[in-house]
C-alpha cells in the first residue's frame, strides 16, 4: 500500500526521530512510503490565531502537494485534523472546496490509519515499563480518534498501562496560546505534569507533537525523570 507521509513541521524540524519511527513502522506493516519534499506547514498557527487569509496560501500549497496521494498519513492528530478543516475554510469555493474534501477523505492520523485501513491491532512492538497516555484534544474531540491509540498500546508487549487522571483536560499547548497566554498555559501544563507524576509512569506517551513538546518541555525544565515519547516510537520499539 502506498502511503504519502505528511510529517508536520514540528517533526521535520524538531523531532525527526518521530518521523523516522513512523516510516519504519509503516514499512514494517507493508507500506511503501513517499514523502513529497514540497510539503510545508499546514497553516494551523496562523489559522488558529485568526489570520485566515494569511494561511490560505499554505493550505493551497498543501492541497497541491498531496493531490496525487492515495492515503495521507500524519503522526499528529492536530495536523491531520487541520487537513480535515480545509474543506470548511474553502466552503463555497468552486475550485478549492472539492479539492479540500478529497484531501480530507484520504487523510488519516497514524494510529487511525493502522487500525482503520491496515486493520492491524498488534504491530509486534515490545517495550518494558509503566506508561500513561495523554489524549490530545484535537485528535480526540475534533478528529474523533479515541480508541485507536489505546488499542494499539494495549497490544505492546511488556507495557504496563496506567490511565492518566484528568485525561480529558487540555495540556495548555494550544499553539500560539502557549506564548500568548503564557501565564495560563503554565498552570495548565503544571497540572498535567502533576497528573502524570501521580501515575508513577516512566513514560508519558502522546500522538501529537505539539502537546508532547509542551509537556516534555515542562518535565525537562523541572528535571523530572519521566520519558516523553511519541506513540510512533513506542509502536516501533522491538
Amino acid at each position, binding site marked *: 500500500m502506498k502511503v504519502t507521509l505528511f*510529517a508536520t513541521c514540528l517533526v*521535520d*524540524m*524538531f*523531532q*525527526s*526521530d*518521530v518521523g*523516522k519511527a513512523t516510516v519504519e513502522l509503516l514499512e514494517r506493516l507493508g507500506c511503501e512510503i513517499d*514523502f513529497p*519534499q*514540497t*510539503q*510545508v*506547514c499546514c*497553516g494551523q*498557527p*496562523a489559522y*488558529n490565531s*485568526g*489570520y485566515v487569509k*494569511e494561511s490560505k*496560501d499554505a493550505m*493551497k*500549497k498543501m492541497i497541491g502537494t498531496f493531490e496525487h496521494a492515495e492515503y495521507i498519513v500524519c503522526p499528529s492528530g492536530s495536523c491531520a485534523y487541520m487537513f480535515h478543516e480545509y474543506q470548511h475554510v474553502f466552503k463555497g469555493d468552486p475550485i478549492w472546496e472539492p479539492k479540500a474534501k478529497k484531501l480530507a477523505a484520504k487523510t488519516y492520523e497514524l494510529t487511525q490509519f493502522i487500525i482503520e485501513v491496515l486493520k492491524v491491532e498488534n504491530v509486534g512492538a515490545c*517495550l*518494558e515499563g509503566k506508561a500513561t497516555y495523554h489524549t490530545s*484534544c*484535537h485528535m480526540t*474531540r*475534533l478528529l474523533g480518534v479515541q480508541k485507536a491509540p489505546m488499542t494499539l498500546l494495549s497490544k505492546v508487549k511488556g507495557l504496563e498501562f496506567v490511565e492518566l487522571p484528568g485525561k*480529558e*483536560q*487540555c495540556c495548555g499547548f*494550544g*499553539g*500560539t*496560546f*502557549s*506564548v*500568548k*497566554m*503564557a*501565564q*495560563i*498555559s503554565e*498552570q*495548565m501544563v503544571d497540572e498535567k505534569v502533576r497528573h502524570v507524576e501521580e501515575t508513577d509512569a516512566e513514560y508519558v506517551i502522546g500522538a501529537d507533537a505539539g502537546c508532547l*513538546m*509542551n*509537556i*516534555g*518541555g*515542562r518535565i*525537562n*525544565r523541572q528535571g523530572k525523570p519521566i*520519558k516523553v515519547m511519541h506513540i510512533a*516510537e*513506542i509502536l516501533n*520499539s522491538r
Partner: protein
Amino acid sequence: MPMKIGNERFGERVEKGINNSFMRGAVAGAQDNIGARRLNAIEELGNWEEWRSHGEEIRQHVLEHLDYYLEQLSDNVAKRGGNVFFAETAEEANEYIKEVVQSKNAQKVVKSKSMVTEEINLNASLEEVGCQVIETDLGEYILQVDDHDPPSHIVAPALHKNKEQVRDVFTKKLGYKKSADPTELAWHAREMLRQDYLTADVGITGCNFAVAETGSFALVTNEGNADLVTSLPKTQITVMGMERLVPTFEELEVLVSMLTRSAVGQKLPSYVTVLTGPREELDVDGPEDFHLVIVDNGRSKILGTEFQSVLQCIRCAACVNACPVYRHVGGHSYGSIYSGPIGAVLSPLLGGYEDYKELPYASTLCGACSEVCPVKIPLHELLHKHRQVIVEKEGKAPVSEKLLMKAFGLGAASPTLYKWGSKIAPTAMNPFTSEDKITKGPGPLKAWTEVRDFPAPNKERFRDWFKNREKGGGTSWPEPSKTEKHF
C-alpha cells in the same frame, strides 16, 4: 452589577485569579464533581447525542422564528392580563421597571436569580430611586451582602467563596454569631430572607424559559426561592433575554431536563416553577399585577450573523465547568458577569471588542466546551471566528503579530522559503542552544522558555534524512526504547 466587572487589565485579572489558591481549589473541585455527576446524568438517558441534536433543533427553530414566537408570547401574556414591555436597551428596561416600582410606591423588592438583570445593572438603578433590592438566591445573597462582589459563575455565582469566607461576611455584615457549617449559614440567610419575602412590595424574577403557546414562564431553582418571590408580593416583574423562548410545554420539558442534567448533573431540579400571568379569580396566591420585560440589549444584532448560534444558549454552564482555562483563572478574570467559554463568546458581542478583545484568545481551542454543550453551540469555532474578526475587521491584533503572520504566510506557503528557513534554524538558534535544548529563547520563544525547555532544531531535518535514505544513504537510528529524550 453591569456586565463589565472592574477596570483592571486582563493580565492583572488573570494574575490575581492564578494567585487565588483557595478559589482555584474550589473551582477545580466543583469542575471534577459536577463533571462526573453530569456524565452519570446524561448516561442515564442512553442516547445523549440524540437529545443534543433535538435540543439544538428546538433552539435553532426558535431563533429562526423569533419574531413569530415573541409575538405569540406577548399576545398570550396580554390575554391573561399581564403587561408586556419590549426593551431595546438596558436603559429602557431599567426605566420601565423603575416606573412600575415607583408607581406602586414600593420600598422593598425581592429578586430570584437572574443573569439578565445583572447584565442591565437593574439593582443599582432601583437603589438609585431609594428602593431596597434583596437577592434571594443564596449565592447571590452572599455576594450582595459582601458589598456586591461580582458573580464568578453563571449558575453558582459565589463559587469563588468558601464557607469560612461566607461566615466572615455574615459575621461582619449581619451580626451572625454561629459556625461556618453550611446548614447553619443557610438557616441564617433563610431567617433573614423570610421577613423580606413577607414585606416586599414587588418580586422580580429572571426567566429560564418562556412558553410562547401559553404565555407561561419557567423558573428552575434548587432553593424554592422563586416560588416565594412570585407568590407573596403583589406585583411581579419577569425580565427575560429576548431569545429565552420555547414554542410549547413539550419543548420546555426537553430543555429543562437537559438543563438540569448539564448544569448540576441532576435528573430534575428541586423546583420548576411555572407561572402564567397575574392571579385569577380562583387562584389562592400569585401577583395581582404582572409585567414581562423582554430585553434585547444587543441580541437582535447577533441574529442573522455567523454568531447566531450563541443565542441557542440555555445558560447551563456545562461549558464553564468543562473549561480548562476557567479552571485555573476563575470567573472574575473574564471581566464580565458571563465567564468561561460562553462568556468569552458572548461578552465581546454584547459589550464590544474594546473591553473583551483578549477573551477569544483565552482558549486553547481544545473543544471541551463544544463537546458538552447540550444545544450544540460550536463554542470553540465561535472563539475562532472572533479571532478572525479581531484580525481582519477590528484591526486590534498587535502589529508585531501581524508582521509575524505575514511572514508566516509567505514562508509557509513557499517550499523554497520554508526549506531555507528550516535549514538555517539550527545555526540561527545556536546562540540559544545548550545540550540540545533551548532554555532562554528570543522573540515569541521567550514566553515559552520562561517555563519550559524548547527543543533545539534537529541538525539533520527529517526531510533531509528521508532524501538521503531514498538515495540509499540513509542513516539508521537507535532503538526508540534506548533513545534519549527528544521532547
